[in-house]
């Protein structure tokens, strides 16, 4: 609530981010002793979910050993994975729950913190109604925790409003896939990638954001496959692209419609597949007719010949895989964009067979599993709809409540923040989410946080959002609690507990269960362990699309992961979806979906003539709560830079390393320039992992895709100029933008 209790400098001094460069005890001390055990688990820093073995000694993680038998990554790791273990035993780690006092955050007892939390929940809900209290979850939580949080919001709090930071990840893709196929999952496992004749990668910086996928792509090229990359920036995989399409930010739909136009014009569609297994083709074909390559080229800035070539390579190939990630999805027409990809796959019959299919590259640690079992605002376990009467009755039955007690769908992540700002929502419990860094329009987020009457945060480090909290509950790291994850492939995996939480920190699920008990709802939360939660989750998901009934920790350990759906204990899992050409839709067919072109929510004009786009770097993860504390990763890319093309730089007399100010309709941010020929001259790129004065999300806007509610991080209008009197201090503290006046209680 309100502004931070003491200055940002003081909070930083106390809670970091400080940089940890060494294992526990230093390079030459405890970490050189043999490990007591090697625990097979996974990296926590992205949706690839690479297998890794953590070296454990005296309840500390002292290093890692590659896990070469794990079938996804065979021991491969990106730098985040290599340094993943350095988050454990970090000096910034919260070792006790903290209460906000007038002189800052002070350690307190769990009883005081939790009773205070429960008291505030009761006050706020009593005064303003159940829905005045909201819950934020995160897509780096285990599937059990995600399930628990959804049940907690609906059964213990009775609020409509729970959503999670996966809303900022790939929800537009999920919505498009549900519309087309009735299921929200990549259609193939990664082992299919090397079999494709053509790989079309759009809006996906694979080399930096999904590094292990690179090896699969290179294998495809070794086998003679051709790689097409569409992106406003030449990302690392572009070095070996057979065709590069440098499209303008926000024009992906125009590119894809142009490609579909060429496919249909040339008669390269799969007529038999379309007529037997799909609906809605005629409408989509009629629409694509309007998008000849010339029109598409004018909109995208990609030569018409290149658009034709890409379309023909896909259309003429026997097997094409169409991969996409945030570049395509983080747009106010994100669902349209992803539907357009699906439409090309369906038109060419590239689905349900080997080496082909549309593929979303989910980005967050448990981005897939975290969205399947109930922390989304409109969903119940098993990817069931919260508005489906049969689903409500089934899940209510498992939970031991009446269906009418289940709240209706609530607001999505950004809408919750909007409702906090407007005063409709007064209290928030946030776990595994750092909205001050990760939501768009950070100044708005800060204002909203200042209006909360209560903010409770569960986290292992003091995130920038936690600075605004009334109570900070010291939770657990990935390696401190058993649980399931689900990788971008749809492979359900086991995060093995390696160590206990240090100090008085507690497991995340214990904290939520304890609060539920103190709220008098303990009878619905009898869980003693994650295994208990999984038992209920399996049953709750049973019969749903994301059916986990056949999945247990023991099976996963033995089989090195199981692809859902897996409806019973004998079922082998489902690596390739739709192999029988049956889709999860009401009629069993795949649906073409018409797409409507519309401009970005933050269009360029004379005052803001350039595109700003944001994204990740290989050495940082999401809002940086973890990775901005790991020295080796910070050194690799210490602070955000604005990438711009030499042609633009020359016009503005900007040289590499100069301080530049990037201004949008929200705010301005001053960072150093990085002058590179690998970006379009009309586009500026800034990575978003940082807080404070150089936070890229001060610049982004809150326009949402109307159906999926994903923000448009990838397209803002901006201008750039030489900075006058830049603040060159190296840290990421808050400066000239102070907190809004204190509001509420």
């Amino acid at each position, binding site marked *: 609530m309100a502004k931070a209790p003491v200055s940002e400098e003081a909070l930083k001094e106390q809670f970091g981010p400080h940089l940890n*460069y*060494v294992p526990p005890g230093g*390079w*030459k001390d405890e*970490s*050189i002793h043999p490990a007591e055990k090697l625990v097979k688990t996974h990296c926590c820093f992205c949706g690839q979910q690479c297998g890794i073995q953590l070296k454990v000694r005296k309840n500390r993680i002292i*290093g*890692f050993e*590659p896990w*070469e038998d794990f079938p996804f*990554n065979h*021991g*491969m*790791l*990106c*730098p985040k*994975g*290599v*340094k993943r273990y350095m988050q454990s035993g970090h000096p910034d780690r919260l070792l006790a729950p903290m209460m906000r006092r007038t002189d800052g955050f002070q350690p307190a007892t769990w009883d005081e913190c939790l009773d205070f939390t429960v008291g505030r929940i009761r006050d706020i809900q009593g005064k303003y109604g159940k829905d005045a209290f909201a819950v934020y979850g995160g897509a780096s939580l285990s599937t059990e925790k995600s399930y628990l949080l959804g049940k907690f919001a609906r059964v213990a709090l009775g609020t409509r409003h729970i959503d999670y930071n996966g809303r900022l990840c790939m929800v537009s893709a999920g919505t498009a896939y549900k519309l087309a196929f009735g299921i929200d999952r990549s259609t193939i496992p990664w082992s299919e990638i090397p079999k494709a004749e053509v790989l079309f990668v759009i809006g996906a910086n694979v*080399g*930096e954001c999904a*590094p*292990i996928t*690179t*090896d699969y792509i*290179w294998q495809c*090229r*070794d*086998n003679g496959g051709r790689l097409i990359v569409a992106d406003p920036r*030449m*990302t*690392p*995989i*572009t*070095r*070996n692209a057979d065709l590069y399409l440098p499209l303008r930010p926000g024009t992906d739909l125009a590119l894809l419609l142009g490609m579909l136009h060429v496919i249909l014009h040339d008669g390269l569609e799969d007529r038999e597949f379309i007529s037997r297994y799909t609906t809605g083709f005629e409408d989509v074909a009629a629409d694509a007719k309007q998008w000849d390559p010339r029109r598409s080229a004018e909109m995208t800035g990609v030569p018409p010949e290149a658009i034709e070539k890409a379309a023909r390579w896909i259309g003429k190939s026997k097997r094409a895989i169409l991969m996409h990630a945030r570049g395509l999805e983080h747009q106010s027409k994100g669902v349209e964009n992803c539907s357009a990809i699906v439409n090309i796959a369906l038109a060419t019959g590239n689905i349900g067979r080997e080496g082909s299919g549309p593929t979303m590259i989910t980005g967050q640690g448990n981005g897939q599993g975290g969205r399947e079992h109930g922390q989304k605002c409109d969903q119940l376990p098993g990817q069931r709809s919260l508005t489906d009467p049969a689903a409500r009755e089934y899940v209510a039955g498992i939970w031991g409540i009446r269906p009418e007690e289940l709240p209706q769908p609530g607001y999505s992540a950004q809408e919750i923040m909007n409702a906090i700002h407007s005063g409709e929502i007064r209290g928030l419990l946030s776990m595994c989410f750092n909205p001050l860094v990760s939501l768009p329009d950070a100044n708005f987020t800060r204002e909203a946080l200042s209006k909360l009457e209560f903010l409770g945060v569960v986290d292992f480090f003091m995130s920038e959002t936690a600075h605004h909290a009334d109570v900070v509950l010291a939770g657990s790291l990935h390696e401190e609690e058993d649980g399931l994850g689900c990788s971008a492939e749809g492979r359900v995996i086991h995060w093995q507990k390696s160590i206990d939480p240090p100090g008085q920190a507690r497991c995340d699920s214990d904290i939520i269960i304890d609060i539920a008990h103190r709220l008098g709802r303990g009878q619905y939360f009898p869980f003693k362990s994650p295994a208990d939660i999984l038992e209920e989750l399996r049953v709750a998901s049973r019969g749903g699309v994301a059916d986990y009934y056949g999945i247990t920790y023991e099976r996963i350990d033995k089989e090195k992961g199981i692809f859902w759906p897996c409806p019973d204990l004998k079922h082998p899992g489902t690596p390739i979806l739709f192999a029988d050409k049956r889709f999860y839709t009401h009629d069993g067919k795949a649906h073409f979906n018409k797409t409507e072109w519309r401009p970005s929510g933050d269009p360029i004009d004379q005052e803001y003539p350039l595109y700003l786009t944001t994204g990740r770097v*290989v*050495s940082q993860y999401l809002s940086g709560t973890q990775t901005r504390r790991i020295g*080796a*990763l910070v050194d*690799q890319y210490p602070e955000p830079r604005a990438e711009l093309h*030499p042609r633009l730089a020359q016009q503005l007399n900007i040289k*590499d390393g100069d301080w530049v100010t990037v201004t949008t309709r929200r705010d301005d941010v001053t960072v150093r320039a*990085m*002058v*590179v*020929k*690998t970006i379009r001259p009309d586009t500026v790129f800034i990575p978003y992992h940082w807080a404070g004065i150089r936070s890229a999300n001060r610049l982004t806007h809150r326009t949402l895709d109307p159906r999926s509610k994903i923000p448009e991080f990838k397209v803002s209008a901006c201008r750039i100029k030489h900075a006058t009197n830049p603040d060159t201090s190296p840290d990421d503290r808050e400066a000239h933008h102070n907190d809004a006046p204190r509001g509420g209680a």
Partner: protein
Amino acid sequence: MFGYEFYIDPSRCIGCRSCLQACEECETHRGKSMINFDFIERRESITSAAYVCWHCDEPTCAQVCPADAIKKGDDGIVHSSLKPRCIACSNCVLACPFGIPKMMEPEQQMMKCDMCYDRTSVGKRPMCATVCPSQALAYIRPEEIARRKEKPTNIFYFGEQKITTKVFMMAPAERDAIALDVVDYMWEEKHELAVAIE
């Protein structure tokens, strides 16, 4: 490890520096990375390259060492300088045609990649090649590398100096050695030679 070879293919490198980060985890030089890494010219392109030591059959570094501190094992691994012998003169640093040895401060000792001797000697793959996400650094069997389009070679020419190495470099399929001479690509040279012989 028996039957495995080390292959370097810079064309696969994505610049992630996972190799650098993983190298410093190794038992014999903890906290110090022995990988050589460069963006070729970041302003111009995203092209990057990571290298380990090539482990020459006749190591120049050892040949120029006045203290006889650099030893090659029977397995072909060229090791860091022997601490008691090394006089930190940097002859090896200057002489290596690949630019591999590093003079470490404050140890005052030349250290270099030993292909994770501590790991390979007990049946594990070297750290960098195990983690490399793009397999630009790969420690695999020859039959596995044969699936790639490029061809491995371990013959390098530096001026008149011919060097053969333990580590392989991936080269275009039509090349037998790493040497760059415009003459090799000229038609008239071969043509004239052919005419002269006739």
